[in-house]
């Protein structure tokens, strides 16, 4: 009798606490993750190649153009905004969230079953902003640097310079090896169990909840002590969970090779990597960068994988010096 009363009391207390709060539908846009550009037309965007991309620019549009490419797939450019500093050095800096990432429009999963879609989108962005005779430099971080190389591999005559920050690999096998090194974790540790426990609480087929959960899980993976050598997570707006999952699913059956035509690109490229990223290291940097015939290879001191955010002070003068050779 006493136990039944206690159980009833607990239920009443829980009910009271619960009913004092609003009940929310996780599928309603704008509650758990920010709206995308097609949901909020006040956000800066461009419409290209059948999609809407969150995009913004800095500097004089007639200056040599730097197109900044974020990591992922499924990341966004919020953590790369330090790079707008190059607009003060005579460059027109273009940022955009790739298809299905950040605040760009979401698409169904099948859309991302192709490495060409990201290369085609990049071509469309360049075409959107480029003026006749304007020089174009690609500046990519992580997957963005891989994407830059994929574009150069296809269109070597269109790009005047490339700056790369820790591309995982220009062949899937190299990228996969890097991913396995930095994702290997202590099974008994806080990070991996924080990541996995969320699967019990949140499941979805909807972009909103999937992006929300991915954001929480990505933060768990960037906790202090991570193998990428970063001090913590970098700022981001919204993870592109479906884009990321589809890309990794696709690549397992369709491993890419962005080096097939790279020997044609004789222009010097700047390839940087972080001193503190133990998963990357000099050996991997030398391996990956060797695909380019003309490389300036530089280790960024005091930085992990997130060079544009945590390593900007040391990266900036090196990149500026390289960029000035292209102007």
């Amino acid at each position: 009798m006493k136990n039944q009363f206690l159980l009833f009391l607990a239920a009443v207390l829980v009910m009271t606490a619960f009913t004092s709060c609003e009940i929310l539908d996780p599928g309603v846009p704008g509650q758990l993750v920010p709206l995308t550009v097609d949901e909020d037309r006040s956000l800066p965007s461009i419409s290209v190649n059948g999609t809407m991309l969150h995009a913004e620019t800095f500097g004089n549009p007639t200056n040599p153009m730097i197109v900044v490419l974020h990591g992922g797939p499924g990341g966004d450019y919020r953590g790369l905004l330090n790079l707008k500093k190059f607009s003060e050095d005579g460059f027109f800096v273009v940022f955009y969230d790739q298809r299905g990432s950040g605040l760009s429009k979401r698409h169904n999963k099948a859309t991302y079953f192709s490495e060409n879609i990201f290369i085609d989108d990049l071509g469309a962005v360049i075409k959107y902003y480029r003026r006749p005779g304007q020089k174009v430099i690609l500046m990519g971080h992580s997957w963005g640097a891989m994407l830059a190389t994929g574009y150069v591999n296809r269109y070597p005559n269109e790009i005047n310079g490339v700056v790369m920050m820790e591309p995982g690999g220009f062949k899937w096998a190299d990228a996969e090896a890097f991913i396995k090194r930095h994702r290997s974790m202590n099974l008994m540790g806080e990070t991996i169990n924080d990541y996995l426990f969320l699967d019990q609480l949140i499941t979805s087929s909807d972009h909103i909840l999937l992006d929300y959960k991915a954001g929480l899980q990505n933060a768990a993976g960037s906790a202090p002590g991570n193998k990428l050598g970063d001090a913590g997570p970098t700022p981001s707006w919204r993870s592109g969970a479906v884009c990321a999952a589809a890309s990794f699913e696709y690549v397992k059956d369709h491993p890419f090779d962005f080096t097939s035509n790279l020997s044609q690109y004789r222009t010097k490229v700047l390839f940087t990597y972080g001193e503190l990223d133990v998963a990357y290291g000099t050996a991997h940097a030398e391996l990956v960068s060797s695909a380019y015939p003309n490389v300036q290879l530089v280790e960024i001191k005091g930085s992990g994988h997130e060079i544009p955010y945590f390593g900007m002070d040391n990266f900036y003068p090196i990149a500026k010096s390289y960029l000035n050779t292209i102007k």
Partner: protein
Amino acid sequence: MKTLLASMIIIVAVTTAAFPQNINWRSLGEDQQNIIRFNFGYDGGVAAQAGYYRTFTLIRPVATGIDVSVPMGNNLLDDYKVRLGVQVELLEIDGFSATFRLNSAFRRYESELVKISSFGADYAVVAGYYSPTWSVGGEFGLDKAITSRLMHTDRMKESFPGIKDGWYVPTGGHWFYGIHGTKTLGETLDLSLKAGATMAQRNDENAAVPLYLQLGFGVRF
């Protein structure tokens, strides 16, 4: 209307009772109505679990109990799962037995971005062959996070000022199916092994590791 619905959901989740351990009814002696069990394995994370169960007979054998599961990590009690439940053996024929198991579950999760308190339930049918010294069988059920309270930290709100704290309904669910076995040791001890797979409900994305595996040790008294 939403308030009433939410209240009903909470009452059902809290007052329904079941626990995840499968009882070998045939191994219980007449004077053995209590079971304490310790488990370790993978169930949404590498986790350790402890539970207490009480058996009795109401026309059919019934067991009720509570268990607590804690995933590994530096902060052991920031994430945990508590379940209250009941199992009822529905039928038994020459050692072959079928049991219905019903749980309520409370989960808590904490990270640098959010604190989550979640009420849910899991339901399963367990069937197999049970002898006084060993058992083997299978299970099939649904584990659902019915409603979750998401309270975001200042750090999360700095990143996205418009994020909304509150109770979200629903948030998640997985079907699970697997096999289990037990072996008695002496008069009072049991070893148990359970393994299986999970599949997210509807067309939801599956868990990163859609498996479970649990090794257990129990004492009957």
